[in-house]
């Protein structure tokens, strides 16, 4: 998923005509001062760190300034700070508006209904999970029909908006639906949507674009998102690779089997560090590539758990042995294998000739790899 930073989300909002505070993005304190001095951003203003993690206000990543000098000072304080592991490189400077009520609106997918759902709540400005469900209105939207005018009216009513306020909400909701569909969004959220005088304004923007729709959205291709550098390389090589915070590497085929393998490791006190899904590949080169990527994550031990159905055990074993040879001796790690299924005997024999034992029992194999990661021999 491509999570857009607030300013990128707001650029999308602007394109679709959603009302926003006046603002600009800056990357240095000098730019912050200049933007306020020239009036590009009216004073007083708010400076917001452009990071993906939530809780910026409480975490000191949002500050206010009444003069250009204060804007410079505040920018200096935020830029370069590390917020929940993310370095702040960009700031969004916006005019500070006189805010009335804060509301919540979003569009997302209801997987059970297999329908998009419009969610609105009069309690905005806080995490929606913390809001009492009776204060949230959920309207499923049929994709063939789109967000109907009566549904938008119902949302306004639930939010307690009437007159010009209701009138200003209506096009925002229509745009939200357009963004959700046309931009292939998983989530479009405005929290808070603030009452400012006689209209509502989007103070924040949260937009998540679906990865699988990347083929028709080259405009998002450059956004690195919150992937780790290794996850980024894996993505380019089309290998499913997820970094976690433990020290055991897991190579398996298929998402379900990979998850089940992680569960077994955890049961024996192991902490999975990297998970790599070979998928349905039966290409030894691809297996080798995946294995070398795993080596770069420097795991304490690696567990290869493959069930050959379409994939053949012998081709996986061949790729694995080939890749092992390419890893320098100083960077080798203990390897526990469990290969089962299609051409199992041949695969086990190839591994054995390279000094790797395949343990057929998942429990036994899981225990062995956890032990190896803790310093014992596999």
């Amino acid at each position: 998923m491509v999570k857009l930073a607030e300013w990128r989300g707001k650029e999308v909002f602007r394109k679709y005509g959603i009302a926003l505070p006046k603002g600009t993005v800056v990357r240095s304190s000098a730019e912050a001062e200049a933007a306020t001095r020239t009036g590009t951003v009216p004073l007083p203003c708010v400076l917001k760190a452009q990071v993906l993690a939530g809780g910026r206000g409480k975490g000191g990543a949002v500050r206010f300034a009444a003069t250009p000098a204060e804007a410079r000072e505040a920018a200096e304080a935020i830029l370069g700070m590390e917020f929940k592991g993310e370095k702040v490189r960009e700031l969004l400077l916006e005019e500070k508006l006189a805010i009335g009520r804060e509301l919540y609106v979003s569009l997302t997918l209801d997987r059970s209904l297999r329908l998009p759902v419009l969610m609105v709540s009069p309690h905005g400005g806080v995490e929606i999970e913390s809001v009492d469900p009776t204060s949230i209105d959920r309207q499923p939207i049929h994709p063939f029909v789109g967000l109907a005018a009566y549904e938008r009216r119902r949302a306004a009513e639930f939010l307690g908006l009437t007159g010009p306020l209701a009138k200003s909400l209506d096009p925002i909701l229509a745009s939200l639906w357009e963004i959700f569909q046309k931009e292939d969004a998983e989530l479009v959220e405005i929290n808070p949507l603030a009452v400012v005088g006689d209209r509502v304004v989007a103070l924040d923007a949260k937009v998540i674009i679906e990865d699988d729709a990347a083929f028709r959205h080259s405009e998002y291709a450059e956004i690195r998102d919150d992937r780790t550098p290794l996850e980024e390389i894996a993505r380019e090589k089309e290998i499913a690779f997820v970094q976690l915070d433990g020290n055991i590497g897991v190579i398996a085929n298929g998402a379900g089997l990979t998850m089940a393998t992680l569960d077994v490791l955890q049961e024996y006190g192991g902490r999975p560090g990297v998970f790599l899904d070979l998928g349905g590949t039966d290409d030894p080169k691809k297996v080798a590539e995946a294995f070398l990527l795993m080596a770069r994550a420097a795991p304490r031990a690696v567990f290869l758990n493959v069930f050959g159905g379409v994939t053949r055990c012998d081709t996986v074993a061949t790729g694995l042995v080939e890749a092992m040879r390419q890893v320098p001796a100083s960077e080798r790690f203990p390897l526990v294998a469990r290969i089962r299924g299609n051409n199992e005997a041949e695969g086990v024999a190839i591994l054995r000739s390279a000094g790797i034992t395949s343990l057929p029992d998942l429990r036994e194999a899981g225990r062995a790899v956890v032990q190896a990661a803790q310093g014992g021999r596999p």
Partner: protein
Amino acid sequence: MSVLVDGRTRVVVQGITGHQGTVHTRQMRLFGTQVVAGVTPGKEGSSVEGVPVYNSMARAMAATSANASCIFVPAPFARDALIEAVDAGIELVVIVTEHIPFHDMLTMYHYARIRGTRIIGPNCPGIASPGLSKVGIIPNVVFRPGPVGVISRSGTLTYEIVNGISEHGLGETTCIGLGGDPVNGTSFVDALPLLEADPETRLIVMVGEIGGAAEEDAADYIRQHVSKPVIGYIAGRSAPPGKRMGHAGAIVLRGKGTAESKQAALESAGVQVARFPYEIPDLVAARLSRAPP
């Protein structure tokens, strides 16, 4: 007996001239499936594994009276392939293709539903009834005819579990891989009544995973409508929140879709939930020896 596929299933493979389409046409035929046609635009007149190729679904169906389709075409073209299959009047479509945008799948699901076509998948291994027919890519070797119905959101893990059930000397009526995407054509709730109604299925194995609420929905359904014993398993207990665990649909978002929630829901509906996949064959055997045939 079986559900959804049987000896009368006549399959057309959409994307038959691609690598996957060709490999699995061969595997389906080895399983005993009647693969009667393939479709690849522009390739009419050729054949793959002895199966004639047509330019369109309409032409393939007119020539062969196929009643099921298996889609292997790449994700950007999957939506069109499905619409074409539905318009040609097919009854059942298995979509193997992975990485279809969910917005496309919403259109596909609702369109198929209006026209009365059932979709299995996408991003799924398909459906198989040992001795009768297979539509999809589940390995032939794992099956053995028997009394267990299997429904699962996973691929390889399903093969492993079915293999374990077969090795235990038990066997399967039908195995349905529902797929790992957030929007699927057939959910647990859609598949459960089929297995409940199938006289030869004596027990249901249900393999779920983190993400969404399909297992919680299934638990509600089971409590009210399923009389047969159900053994469950949920993969992804150790998955950290916010990480997409290989399947597009396998993600704990904003505290929703955890393994704990699913396990608790299933247990409250009387489903015995295995802690690990290797426990399933023993649980199935024990349950079958208790349940009346």
